[in-house]
């Protein structure tokens, strides 16, 4: 895990970006403030990215490989684009970070998570999807990035 963080740090420094997730969380752990959220940790640049490549570069400083070991649970057709339940889980070892991206949203990155050791690579959240889109799940395991994606159809409701 330490290796992954320092690798990320180097990548970030070389990329000249301000907000690498791994590096930032390392600081959070050092600060160890219980039950408080630190706004300074927010990877603002990554959340402003408009493509998957740019968002992942800013967030992790590296590019992902395709993996079949990520379970991305999304509905085929969303009931309501404003509340789309998304679950992701992974059997990959030593998962340190996870992220969800929606390629057709104005900003690509939807959410990202940094996991402490012992936290399971398994989570469920709800996203807004502007239109029919590929949703991408990214997992950082043993310092490497993996991704998988699935389409979600977003229909216009008829019953205003």
């Amino acid at each position: 895990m330490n290796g992954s963080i320092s690798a990320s740090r180097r990548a970030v420094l070389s990329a000249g970006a301000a907000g690498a997730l791994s590096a930032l969380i390392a600081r959070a752990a050092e600060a160890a403030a219980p039950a408080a959220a630190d706004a300074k940790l927010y990877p603002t640049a990554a959340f402003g990215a408009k493509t998957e490549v740019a968002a992942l570069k800013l967030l992790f400083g590296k590019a992902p490989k395709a993996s079949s070991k990520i379970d991305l649970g999304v509905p085929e057709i969303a009931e309501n684009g404003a509340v789309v339940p998304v679950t992701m889980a992974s059997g990959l070892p030593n998962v340190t970070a996870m992220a969800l991206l929606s390629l057709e949203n104005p900003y690509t990155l939807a959410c990202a998570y940094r996991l402490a050791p012992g936290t399971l690579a398994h989570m469920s959240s709800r996203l807004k999807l502007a239109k029919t889109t590929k949703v991408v799940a990214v997992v950082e395991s043993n310092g490497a990035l993996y991704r998988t994606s699935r389409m979600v159809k977003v229909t216009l409701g008829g019953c205003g």
Partner: protein
Amino acid sequence: MRRWLLLLLALAAPVAAAAAPNPAADRAAFQGWFRHLFPQLPLAKYVDGPYNFSASERAQWQQIMELPPYGFAVDHGKALFDARFPDGAGYASCFPHGGIGIAQDYPQFDPKTGRVVTLPIAINRCRVAHGLPKLKLTTGDLADIDAYMVRTSRGHKIDVVVPDTKPALAAYEAGKEYFYSRRGQLNFSCASCHLQYPGHRVRGDTLAPALGITASFPIYRSKWGNMGTLVRRFIGCNKNIRSAPDKPDSLAYRDLEYFLTAMSNGLPIAGPGARP
């Protein structure tokens, strides 16, 4: 001559049926219609509305129900319900059983005013009786109090009584006429969607069956992002068919809710609900 007599009888029969409202017979026919449409679906399941017709939508709903989005409304509603009025009384003093577990008995016909009283209207009446202003009938605090009172009634079987009196039956019949009358520029009745085509889609949305449709209200609707009462949905439905909505406390909506809920007698209260 005999042929004429038969014809007269045939013409007279529907008129006679129309003359005497019979909620029990209506309910049997209404529920029978849905049994005919969906022979496999148990009666109590109708309260799940559109989620009976799509496994994927049902799965999304069940995920959302893990920690339902109306949770805040129920908590807030309980706080409001438990708070004292300036005169020291509270909502509990206005209702039988202290207002707990009674949603299945609403709407009721009030013989004094000759009007149907829905649960949200009863909540407002309680406020007025204790010198407080009425709350908005569609959303906000009143929907939250409604949500809490309905939550305490979950599982109770809907038991709307239509007294065998002329004014009560007239209100019931007016609600029935409203439900089946086509209106609005699109020429739809409530029945066009929710009786004739439940389970079918209107663009992205699945139509809920009219049977059991009232059991989940008030609802947290994702589209609204907050709670709404049944009347709020009536207003939305009317706008959908390009029909100018009635006022939230109008007799039209009260009577409609009276008829519609009476058709679901015997089904369990499932509210508050979550819908897309």
